[in-house]
Each structure stands twice: as structure tokens, then as C-alpha cells.
């Protein structure tokens, strides 16, 4: 039996709810299909009492469904209420398996066998995807669980944990405290998890606390009986095995919705798993009549999704609707002093800037919404050399002067772009840029630009090529024209190396020179049978020049210290370059002799190499500024942590007790302000920013999602309640602190579960991390508060230099 609606909305998330509510208000025949038993599945899974933010604050809400920041419970109950008030036709437990047909006649099949017909379909299924299930016979919700709320609530059971990721390991270890736990891994190792978790599970397995079944896949579960346990069978490398268990906890991750969406006929721009479907300005996908909204359309925030839900219904009904951001854009374009409509300006931008020409208009609109439009007066400074900004500029009109070193400035005109070097490498600006005549610029933040590059292959290609060209020009041949370099640039290769991967080894044939585009590399030399790091080379520099100059063998090994991208120019092309430019050979020789000296000095000390090796192992290769503590000066006074806590709402952003020590160098747990910060990768409100001084900081618009905490490989981000601020000095002096004896250190590094002061009614845990005290004059409080000079913040270049100086 099939029912037919004008609009079928798939997914009762914020977008879907809003769309359905709008349709219901307009009395349009509609259905809202939700696979789970309640609305907003993702929000349901938030922890109890979690405070949900309503970012971005500037965007007006345009929906029948109310939404303002508040607790999870409050928002969910309001939504439930609104659903009932608006008379939304919702079907729970309706998981969509396929969508067929075309505009006006879509057939939607559900997993329960039902079919729904609709003229238009709105997809609001988010990006979380479906949790992978065991998919074996006998699976029932009371026996197989896909999440674990409180490991302490279960005791004395035999539990199977299926999975090999972080979630599975953390659950298994927590449960093993009171239970007999077997972890089931379909492979023969735990490779997907974080290093810390891998160590944890391996220790537990070795100690016998947890049993592990490798190369095992669950194949069946016996039916429920009077017995408290049920028999789970596996197919293993050695054949079938069975285990009796009280429960199974499966943590298999989620299936990204892409394949499902693709099966509906929706096209994606490229193979990148992070890319989003191709959409029109009105959220229509490549399948006519099938609309995509919410996170899947590239709008991860609740308010955006709800606005889209409203807009998409208007669009389906054929009404002209200005997107909610229309006024914002209009405001933005006011700087340009034009009378053209917003759409016209957007169109002109796409037409005049080739890089954006292939971007889908919807995404471009979003891009511009994130961007700033400047109309600088002639000679105005756009950015200066060595700034730590990494936004990207495109020239809408007029030209700019790019001043590299002291040479003649390069003039770049309409349609061109600049700033891509810092964007891609995460490094400081390599040139100063000033505005030319009648200049109009679009400044796009790094995050938006990265989103664009991941989605639009053409744009990425243009940028990559330009990057290579400009790097070659800037590095080797500033006097040569772009045209002359074009053949060499197009022959250059873009390489990517994982952390620890060798780029070339000592003794290899020298075949190419590598320009480091992002990341950093360490240069190692054989020393008594061991590879010892001699030097560290950061992004924007090149390695391998010694070899290609003379065509010798490689004199050292070069290894990526973090994930690194290089541009390689092979020996032949490099010789062409040398031929074109007479001074180049001399300049390169200079670099070569400098580096030889470096190598010599470090070679004389094994310890220096050891320390450098240690620091690079600690991930300092991708750092721009890192807190180091000299243990032979540190008196354990904890003033660094106290200073941090006192200047940062009562929560220390560094953990002096954490981190590794080598010789006398201690790398405490504290932010390194990575070149390409991991934490910035997935921040829904774009709250993590990089200040011009290089400080990576979290803005007030943090919604407390915890993504950055999870993404940081160095555990330097915590979730904490805002603290109570500073203590009164004089009170403390005369009376001491009124605190229980059991808690002598109130303001230290805290574990994520108890961070910060007691939760206040309206407070939410937000991500906190080191901001290098960018708002304080005089530099980081931790360093300034160190009484002995043990704590210091250094850039990688500085600490490499320090090590060489100290030990030579």
C-alpha cells in the first residue's frame, strides 16, 4: 500500500522538522520519515542536560519550529510540542532504503517494506550516517547494544565488545573493571585507534583482563532463552567459534550516508569522502525534485538547517524566497557601493574570478557569507610578511602589489588570487601585500576555502598549480616570468607523505628536489648504525638540493615528521631552471654549505640528535610554538598551571604532570599551535581561529560539541565549565583558602569528566585550550610566571637552534 504526498521529508533532524512543520502550516500534503523512534536522533544522543548553542548568532531563524539555545531536554520538548501543534505527519521507525523515480513521482521504499510516493523529496539525513550493525541473525536490541551509557552500571557479566576503534576499546576497558570482557576484532591488530587506546587495550589483553578474538566476525546469535547468556558464534581464521555472553556491545562506527545518497542518483563532485553533493542555490540536487538540506548540504549548524527546511518548502511550492542570509549578504556588499542585487554581485564574482567559476552557486553563496568583502584604498596594507593569518584573497577588481623580499613587487590583477601559500602550508605570510588602484577584494577564511577545495576539484587543481608555480618563482626564480616557469611547474609533482614516511634515504640516487608545501621534515644521518636527526626543515623550504646540484647520491635521509606535502622537481627540470637563472646556482650553493655546517655541528653530538628525535616524535614537527620545560630548572611549583588557570577562567590549559621527558627536556601537555591545526578541521561554528600572531584559539561561539577535543592528537583540549575566575590575593594571604583538605589543588588540569567548576544552570562545557595568552600583554602567562626560567615557549626553529647551541 502506498500513500502519495506532495512533499516527503526524510530525516526528522532540525532541517527536516522545520521543512515538515512549514509544509504542515501551509497545509501541504506531506510526510516526515524518521528512522529512529524520536525526533532529532543526533541531539537525543547528547549527554543529559547538555546545553545546545544557537550559532551563528547573526543569522535570523526562519521556521515554525522554535529554537533558541538551551538544554537538550528543553529543545527536544519544544520540538515535540511544535510537531504536535503544527500537525506534522511524522512516521517514526521509517528508514528509507531507496528513492526512485523523478520529480513529481518519487517512490520511497522503507526498510519495513512500506512505500511512500511523493512529488518532491527533501533529504535532511545529516552526515552521521547509520550505525553499522552486526547484521547477524538473532540480533535483538536487548542483547546487542550500539552504545554504552554507563559502564559502571554493569557488573559481573560476560560481555562481548565488537569493534576495534576508539569507542570499542574505551568501552571494553571500562567494562573490564567489573566484568569479563572479550573484544572482537575483525582484523589481526588494532590499527584504527589512537595510540593511547591501542596501548591500553594491548596491556589489558596481555594482562588477561580482557580476552581478544582477532580475525573474528560475528556470524550468529542463539535465540533468547531462560539462560541469562546467549551463545554468539563467530567465523574466525580457524573456523567457527562460540562464546556465551550476557550482552554484546557493538561499536562498529557509522556508514557515511554518501553511498545511500548516491544510490538515490544524487551526484557528488569528486571521490573525496568529505565532499558534499552538488546542489543548486535552492538546495536542489542533480536529481530534479530531490532537495538536500542540513549537514549533508554543508550546513552543520542547527539554525542553518532549520532555515533551509523552511526555504526548501517555499521553493518546492514555487515561491520565490530569498534565503535567510540575503540581508547579511546585502550588508556585506554595501562596502562595494554597488546598486546591483545580491544575486548579480554573486554572479559577477563567479564570472570575474576564474577560480570560483565552477563552484556551485549554493556553495559559493555560503563561501561569500563566510568571507569578507574589502574595498581598500590604494596602498593600504592587506597583510604583512610573517603575519600568521591564513585567509585567502581573490581580486574582484583592480590590482594588488605583492612585495616579496626587496625585489620589484609583483602586480596581480583582477581575477587573480593570493594568500594561497599560507592557506596551504599553514605557515606565516611569505610576502607583504598592498592594495593597488580601485581594488576590491574577497577575503575567505581558511576553513571555507578548504571546504571549497575539498568539493570543487577544478578549484583545487588551479590552486595547486598556482601554488607550485609561485613557490618555484618565489624560491628559485623571482626574476623569471610565470610563462617561462610554466613548463617546469607543470612537470613538478605533488607528493604526500604520512608522518614518519621516508621521502628519500641516504645513499639513494638524487633524482629530485623537494619543496615542502605543508608539514615539515627531519633530516637524518646514519650514525653508528642509527638514523639520527640532524636538522629540521619546515614548510616553505626545500630539501634534496645537494643531490640535484651535482647529481650525486643522497647524503642524508629525509623523513616526514608529520603529514607532509611536497612539490618535487626532478633533476632535469631543475637543471633547466638553473640554465634559465644564472644566480640560482650560487644561491643554492650557499644553502648547501649552510646545511652542511648544520649537519656537522649536530653530528658531533649524539645527544643533540636524540633530543631532536624525541621532540619530533612528540609531534613538534608540525608545531609553530610549543611549551617546553627544562627539567633541571623546574622546581615543581606549578606556577605555570596556576597562572594559566588564573588567567583563563579557572581552568589550566596545560598539564605539567603530563607529557614526555627526554634528557632534561619535558614536553608538557599543552597546545603546540600546529601549522595545520587538527582541532580546526571540524568545528561546526568555526569557533577555532588562528590569530595573526599564530595563536590558535577557541572563540566564545564554541558550542561545546567536543570535536576538537577528539581531533587533537596531543590531548591538549579539554571540555570545561567556565570557572569562577581569580581568587582574591589578600584573602588568600591572610586566611588561606576555604577548601577541604582532600582537594589541595583546585585549579589544575582536569580530566574531561570533572573539568571546571560546578555546572551552573545555564553553563555548558566548552572546549578550552591554550591561546598563548594572546589577549595579555607580555606573552604567555605560564612562561612569565615561571620563577626559574624552566618554562619557555619556542618555535621549532628556535628549539632546533637551542639544541645545537647547547650541545655543540
Amino acid at each position, binding site marked *: 500500500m502506498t500513500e502519495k504526498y506532495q512533499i516527503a521529508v526524510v530525516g526528522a533532524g532540525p532541517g527536516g522538522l522545520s521543512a515538515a512543520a512549514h509544509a504542515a502550516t501551509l497545509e501541504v500534503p506531506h510526510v516526515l520519515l524518521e528512522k529512529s523512534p524520536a525526533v532529532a536522533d543526533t541531539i537525543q544522543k547528547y549527554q543529559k542536560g547538555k546545553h545546545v548553542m544557537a550559532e551563528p548568532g547573526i543569522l535570523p531563524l526562519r521556521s515554525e519550529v522554535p529554537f533558541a539555545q538551551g538544554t537538550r531536554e528543553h529543545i527536544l520538548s519544544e520540538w515535540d510540542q511544535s510537531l504536535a501543534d503544527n500537525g506534522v505527519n511524522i512516521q517514526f521507525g521509517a528508514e528509507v532504503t531507496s528513492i526512485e523515480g523523478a520529480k513529481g513521482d518519487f517512490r520511497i521504499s522503507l526498510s519495513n517494506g512500506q512505500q511512500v510516493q511523493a512529488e518532491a523529496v527533501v533529504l535532511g539525513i545529516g552526515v552521521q550516517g547509520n550505525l553499522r550493525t552486526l547484521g547477524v541473525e538473532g540480533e535483538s536490541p536487548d542483547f546487542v547494544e550500539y552504545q554504552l551509557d554507563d559502564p*559502571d*552500571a*554493569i*557488573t*559481573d*557479566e560476560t560481555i562481548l565488545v565488537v569493534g576495534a576503534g576508539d569507542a570499542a576499546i574505551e568501552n571494553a576497558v571500562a567494562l*573490564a*573493571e*567489573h566484568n569479563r570482557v572479550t573484544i572482537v576484532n575483525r582484523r589481526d591488530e588494532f590499527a584504527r585507534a589512537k595510540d593511547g587506546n591501542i596501548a591500553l587495550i594491548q596491556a589489558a589483553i596481555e594482562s588477561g*583482563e580482557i580476552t581478544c578474538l582477532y580475525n573474528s566476525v560475528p556470524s550468529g546469535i542463539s535465540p533468547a532463552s531462560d539462560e541469562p547468556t546467549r551463545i554468539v558464534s563467530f567465523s574466525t581464521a580457524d573456523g567457527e567459534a562460540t562464546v556465551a555472553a550476557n550482552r554484546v556491545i557493538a561499536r562498529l562506527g557509522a556508514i557515511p550516508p554518501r553511498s545511500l545518497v548516491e544510490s538515490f542518483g544524487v551526484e557528488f563532485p569528486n571521490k573525496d569522502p568529505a565532499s558534499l553533493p552538488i546542489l543548486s542555490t535552492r538546495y536542489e540536487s542533480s536529481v530534479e525534485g530531490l532537495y538536500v538540506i542540513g549537514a549533508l548540504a554543508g550546513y552543520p549548524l542547527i539554525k542553518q538547517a532549520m532555515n533551509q527546511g523552511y526555504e526548501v518548502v517555499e521553493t518546492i511550492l514555487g515561491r520565490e524566497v530569498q534565503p535567510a542570509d540575503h540581508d547579511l549578504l546585502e550588508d556585506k556588499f554595501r562596502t562595494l557601493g554597488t546598486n546591483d542585487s545580491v544575486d548579480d554581485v554573486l554572479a559577477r564574482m563567479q564570472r570575474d574570478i576564474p577560480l570560483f567559476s565552477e563552484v556551485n552557486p549554493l556553495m559559493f553563496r555560503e563561501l561569500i557569507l563566510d568571507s569578507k568583502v574589502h574595498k581598500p584604498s590604494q596602498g593600504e596594507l592587506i597583510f604583512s610578511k610573517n603575519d600568521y593569518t591564513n585567509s585567502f584573497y581573490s581580486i574582484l577588481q583592480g590590482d594588488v602589489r605583492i612585495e616579496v623580499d626587496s625585489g620589484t613587487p609583483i602586480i596581480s590583477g583582477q581575477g587573480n588570487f593570493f594568500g594561497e601559500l599560507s592557506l596551504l602550508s599553514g605557515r606565516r605570510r611569505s610576502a607583504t601585500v598592498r592594495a593597488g588602484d580601485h581594488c576590491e577584494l574577497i577575503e575567505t577564511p581558511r576553513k571555507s576555502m578548504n571546504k571549497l577545495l575539498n568539493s570543487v576539484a577544478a578549484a583545487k587543481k588551479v590552486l595547486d598549480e598556482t601554488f607550485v608555480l609561485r613557490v618555484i618563482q618565489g624560491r628559485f626564480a623571482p626574476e623569471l616570468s610565470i610563462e617561462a616557469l610554466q613548463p617546469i611547474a607543470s612537470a613538478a609533482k605533488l607528493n604526500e607523505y604520512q608522518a614518519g614516511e621516508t621521502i628519500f634515504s641516504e645513499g639513494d640516487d638524487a633524482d629530485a628536489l623537494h619543496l615542502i608545501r605543508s608539514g615539515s621534515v627531519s633530516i637524518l644521518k646514519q650514525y653508528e648504525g642509527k638514523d639520527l636527526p640532524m636538522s629540521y626543515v619546515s614548510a616553505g623550504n626545500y630539501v634534496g638540493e645537494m643531490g640535484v646540484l651535482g647529481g650525486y647520491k643522497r647524503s642524508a635521509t629525509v623523513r616526514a615528521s608529520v603529514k607532509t606535502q611536497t612539490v618535487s622537481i626532478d633533476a632535469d627540470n631543475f637543471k633547466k631552471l638553473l640554465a634559465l637563472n644564472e644566480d640560482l646556482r650560487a644561491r643554492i650553493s650557499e644553502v648547501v654549505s649552510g646545511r652542511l655546517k648544520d649537519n656537522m655541528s649536530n653530528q658531533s653530538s649524539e645527544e643533540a640528535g636524540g633530543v631532536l628525535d624525541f621532540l619530533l616524535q612528540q609531534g613538534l614537527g608540525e608545531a609553530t610554538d610549543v611549551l617546553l620545560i627544562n627539567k633541571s630548572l623546574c622546581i615543581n611549583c606549578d606556577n605555570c598551571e596556576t597562572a594559566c588557570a588564573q588567567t583563563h577562567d579557572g581552568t589550566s590549559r596545560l598539564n605539567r604532570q603530563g607529557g614526555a621527558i627526554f634528557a632534561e627536556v619535558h614536553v608538557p601537555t599543552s597546545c603546540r599551535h600546529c601549522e595545520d591545526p587538527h582541532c580546526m578541521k571540524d568545528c561546526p561554528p568555526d569557533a577555532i581561529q588562528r590569530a595573526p600572531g599564530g595563536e590558535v584559539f577557541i572563540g566564545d561561539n564554541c558550542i561545546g560539541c567536543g570535536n576538537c577535543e577528539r581531533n587533537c592528537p596531543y590531548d591538549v583540549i579539554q571540555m570545561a565549565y567556565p570557572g569562577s575566575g581569580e581568587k582574591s590575593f589578600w584573602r588568600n594571604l591572610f586566611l*588561606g583558602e576555604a577548601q577541604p*583538605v582532600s582537594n*589541595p589543588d583546585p585549579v589544575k588540569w582536569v580530566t574531561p569528566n570533572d573539568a571546571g567548576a560546578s555546572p551552573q544552570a545555564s553553563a555548558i562545557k566548552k572546549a578550552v585550550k591554550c591561546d598563548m595568552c594572546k589577549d595579555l600583554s607580555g606573552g604567555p602567562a605560564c612562561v612569565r610566571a615561571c620563577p626559574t626560567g624552566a618554562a619557555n615557549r619556542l618555535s621549532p626553529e628556535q628549539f632546533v637552534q637551542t639544541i645545537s647551541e647547547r650541545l655543540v
Partner: protein
Amino acid sequence: MRLLIRTKLGNDEDFQERDFLGAVLRLGRATDQDVVVDDVAVPLSCCEFLIEDQGLHLSVLDDAVVFVNNKRSKGAMLASGDVINVGSCRLTVMDPVAGYDAVLMVLTERRGRKTVELQDNLKASLATTGVSKRKLSWLLVLGIVASCLILPLLVLLEPSLREPIRTSAVLPDDSLWDSGPLHQAHRMIGDDCSACHEAPFVRVQDDTCLNCHQKMTHHADSVQFPEAGLTEARCATCHVEHNDPSVLVQRDSRGCIDCHENIEVLTAATTTLVPVSDFESAHPEFKVSLKTYDVGAAFWRTERVSLSDASLVDGSQLLFPHDVHLNPEGIEGAEARVVLSCNSCHQLESGGASYLPVTMEKDCASCHQLTFDSDFPERQLPHGEANLLVPILEEFYARRTLLGADLEAGRPAFPAERPGKETRMEAALREQALVLARRQALSTAETIFEETTCAICHEVTRSKSPDGQPSWTVLPVQLVDTWMPKSVFDHKPHVEQTCDSCHQAEQSEVATDVLMPKIESCQTCHGGEHSENKLYSECIDCHRFHNPNQSLMGQGDVSAYHFGFLEMDP
């Protein structure tokens, strides 16, 4: 109640059984519990079992973590088959057995027991010893404030408590504020701080000093003589007490020199004082206070004359040749020839500092006897009564004449006419006798005045009185008693020296010679305060700052301190 407890260890099949009789079955880690759970995660007392309403009831103590059928429980009625988990211990309620209220199966699993959290053992810190920096600070600060501030203040401000606190054997008193010992001279003040320090936060007032030192005079009148810069000076500016070693009088010449080395500048040249800065190198020649007799005014004028002044003459008007007296051969005395030395006449006073004044009666009269008639060597004239001399002689000779014994021409003395009747001379004879006596007296007087007795030492002038009789005037004599009144000289330390090492008396032929030694004589031994090879001599060694015998400098007429020296009070 009666319970049957089966205890099982590990996964063994066999178990031990025991009976339990009592009101409550207690379970916990402590050894006094009925069921002991050997797991550090379990509290000492964890939970209790008791029979209530015919059933077995579990009550959980405090915040102990106890699971009943895998659910955290705060207490529950138990039924057969229920499983209770406490740490590593699992209890199962078994089907009842006859004769028992309930049966419990206790299984202690060895795996999964928690390890000891040794960090917790490290709680002990300095704070737990009861000593904290803050506590100690308060203790010390309050102790110090109480003993060193409050108590002394009480002594200071509350007279009734003064003595009890001071005499207490344990309590500290205001002696804690004493920064050093008093000078010996002030010992009698004792520990009564307020004797000098009369008001808190007010410096010791000069009046307080003057209470005892009543006659102390200032060096100079600070109003009349502001140049001296003494306006701000207090007694205590110079007389600093509470030092160790205690020095009350400043010997230092600096303070004197400060003014006196540029005295002419300071006084804008209104003074005749000579700049002084060093005894050896920059000290003027001594001035002696000489007396000259103003005949017209009949007044002894004192004048200070430098010893290097060519016109230096002693005006005592005495005739006295030192050389004659000090003739080593001796000099004719009254009875025999005597050899005189300085101290024959100049006698040290008892303190030994200076010499007693030389007087006629004491020092001269033994030789210079005032006899006038060799027939009556025992008769002497009074000294210093020149105007009485003639009448005395007249009386003497009148008596002699009238008695006749002395008369010439052998005339008998006036015999007595009859006993009991006054012996009367004839009137004419008496007249004659008196004329004779008068003539004799004048003749003797002339000899005494002009040739012998008086004239040896004095200048005598002869004049005619209106009646035609001669009369003699002896010029007055005044010996200088204090040659240098502005300084103090003590002979005693110099007693080892001979007199003539300073005073050249043997060569002095006349009394007008001034025998005071010049400065160079002193300078043979005495140097300035920085002298390399001589005695350090500070100003104060000779001069006194507060000279009670001397008026304030600058007082009255400016020229007064030019003359400086006024007659002292008797």
C-alpha cells in the same frame, strides 16, 4: 536470625559452610565484619543484612557501591536468586533451607580486584604535621607584635601596669625597645625611658636636658647669630645616647671647624676672629688677656693681645724680676739667703690643673717683710694700705715719743705725778713730742715708699698735699689670674715637664715680660687632628663648646665678642 553462609573461593565447586546467629550480618573490608571482603575498593563497613517482615533485607551503608541484580542499590528486600555484588565479592541468595532464615552463597573472585592506590598514602604533607606556612607566619607575627609592641606600649601608656610588667620574670618589657646602653653619666636615669623621652614620637627636648644641666649655656645665641647654624641644633644632635661604646661628648673638631674655618665669611667680616681649621697648621697665635690700668678711670682694662704682638707688655704694674728671684745662687731672704724655684711662689691648686694666684702675703711676705724700723723688727706694716701708712707710722712714733723711750735728747718720759693720777706731760712737751713723731714718721715713710720696702715691688709717686706735707701713691697692681680664659689648660698632664720648658722665667728681668708660651711651644708636642707624628689635638682639648663662664657668642653688641671676655660672675 540464623543464616547459613556458604563461602566459595574462585571457581571451585566446593564451598565451606558456617552458621551465623545474630541480629545483623555485617559485610565490609574490616576484620570485625561478619563477612570480610578482601578488596580495597570496598569500604570498611559496607552493608548489612537483616530479617525484616519475614524476608531478608539488605541495607547499604553510606555511599557504598552495592549492586543488586546488576543495578546499583541503596537497599532492597531480597528474594531467593538475587545476586548482590560488592567489589570483588558476589553474594547469591539461595533457596531457603529448613532451620535457617536464609542462605547466602558468598563467592570471592580473585580477578578484578582493584590494586591499592598508593598515591592516597602520600597525602601526608607538611600541612598534616600541623605546621603550615600561614599558621607559622601568624604565630610568629602575633608573637612578635604581642611581646615587642603591645607589652612595651602598655608599659609606656598604662602606668598601673608598668611595674608589674617590668618586675615580671617572664614578660618582656620596654627594655626591648632599648637600642643600646646609656652613657655612664646617665646611669642614674635607669630604665625610665620617659625620663628623657617624655612624649611618644617627639624627639628628646632640650628642656628635658636642661632640667638637670641647668647652667648649661649655649655656644652662641642662635637668634643673634644665625650664621652659626645652630638654630636646628638640639642637645641630642651632638650628645647621642644609646650607642655602644657610649660616647656622649663629641671630641671631633669637625663641628667647630665647620664654622670656624670660614668664620669671616660666616660673620660677613664683622668679627676679628681668625679662621681656624687645624691646631698645627691653621691656628692663630695665642692671645693673652692683659690688664692695663687706666689711671684716669681708675679701672683695670683687659685686652687680648697676641703673644706675637711686639707691644706685648704685661701691665700688672708690679716690679718683679724673675731672673733675680730664680738666681741659682740664691737670693737674700729675710733671715738668710734662699734659693727659689718656680713653685716657691707658684703653687698648684689642689686639682693640679692650674696654679693658685700669687699673693703678697702667701708668696712674697716671707722675704719681703714690711718692717720699717730696725729697732722693732717684729713690727710690720700692713700690705696694700698705702694711704694708712703715714698715720700708722705717726701713731707708732707718737707713742714712742710720748713714752719717751724713743726721744732724742735724753728727756725723761713723762713721769707719773702721783700714783693714781694720770701721768700728764706738759702740754708743750707733748706738742713737741708729736711734732717729733710726725717728722720721724714722714722720714720713715719716705724711706719705705721711695727706697726700701714698697719701692722694691711697686711704683710709688710722691706728691705734695695742700698742707705742704709729702704724700705717696702706690700704683695698683693686678696680676693676671687667667691668661687665656678662652681655653682650658691643665698643668697636671704636663707635670713631667719642667716649668722653663714653656715659661722662660730665668731670663725675664722685668715683670712686664709675658711668660706665657707661644703656640709653637705647644706645637712641639701637639699636632692637629690629622697630625702624623704628634699628639692628636682636637679643639675640645683646649676649648669648651659650652663655656658656662662665658657669655653667648653673638649676644648683645656684635663687638662684644670681639672683646669677648667680660668679667665673670663671682
